[in-house]
């Protein structure tokens, strides 16, 4: 499950946000990948479409890395 989610996020980051795939790893931070807070909101909207999981703004505040995002989505998917 998590591998699948990580692959989805990687695909979105590289296709929609132009992040080089080599830079993307589970412990990479959004900030480190050049995403600002608005980019992260937009990313969550894309992920919401792809996974059906809505991440609330408050939840975003504790998510810094890709792995944290994957874990939160997997947790909410149940």
């Amino acid at each position, binding site marked *: 499950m998590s591998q699948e989610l990580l692959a989805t996020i990687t695909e979105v980051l590289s296709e929609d946000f132009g992040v080089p795939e080599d830079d993307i790893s589970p412990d990479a931070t959004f900030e480190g990948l050049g995403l600002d807070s*608005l980019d992260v*909101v*937009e990313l969550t*909207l*894309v992920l919401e*479409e792809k996974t059906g999981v809505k991440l609330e703004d408050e939840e975003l505040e504790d998510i810094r890395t890709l792995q944290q995002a994957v874990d939160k989505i997997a947790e909410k998917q149940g």
Partner: protein
Amino acid sequence: MTRVALVTGGSGGIGAATCRALASDGFHVLVGYGGSAGKADEVASGCDGAAEPVQVDVTDEDSVAAAVGHATEAGTLAVVVNNAGVADDDLLIRLDPERFDRTVQVNLRGAYLVSRAAVRPMLRARHGRIISVASVVALRGNVGQTAYAASKAGLIGFTKSLAREVARKGITANVVAPGFVATAMTDQLPDAARESLIDLAPTGRPVEADEVAAAIRYLASDAAGSVTGSVLPVDGGAGI
């Protein structure tokens, strides 16, 4: 993909003219109305193009969310025109706090709620036009209009800040600042306030609602992609 425009206060003078203008540009227009559906129905059927009335109380977060939800079901929400407004005019000494708060709730907080709800789908589409209707009074002030002027001036600071936040995402935010537009709303102004507004305009005449709609139409267009954080007066020179 259908491009949707949500116009709050869509059944008023400026609102109706804006709905007609945007519909003829091919937008699917949601004629936002707070009170009576009748007038909004009339405006919608008078549009040359796709238009439908949608109830939206801009002071109510759930009502705003429902209207934006309706817009995103109808297509891609491309344009929001924050036009809903009230003018409860009186000299400051006689202006009770509730009347001041109500004016700010509708005119400023309403635009905040609608814009906040609209930014999400616009972010996703990486395109959007958020146009707020202020007034020349926001820049010049006017006797009996402390609440109205304050609420409309607030739209300017709000819009300039929003413009900075979302510019990189293909979303623009602008203000149109009409002068005295002869509409049902301005007919309720005290004579003194109305005359003083007309006298301010070097053109010596009221502004036409269609003239304001033409400015909104431009700001809503793809051609205005580099116009953001601006205040476009349509006031016959009253703001010079």
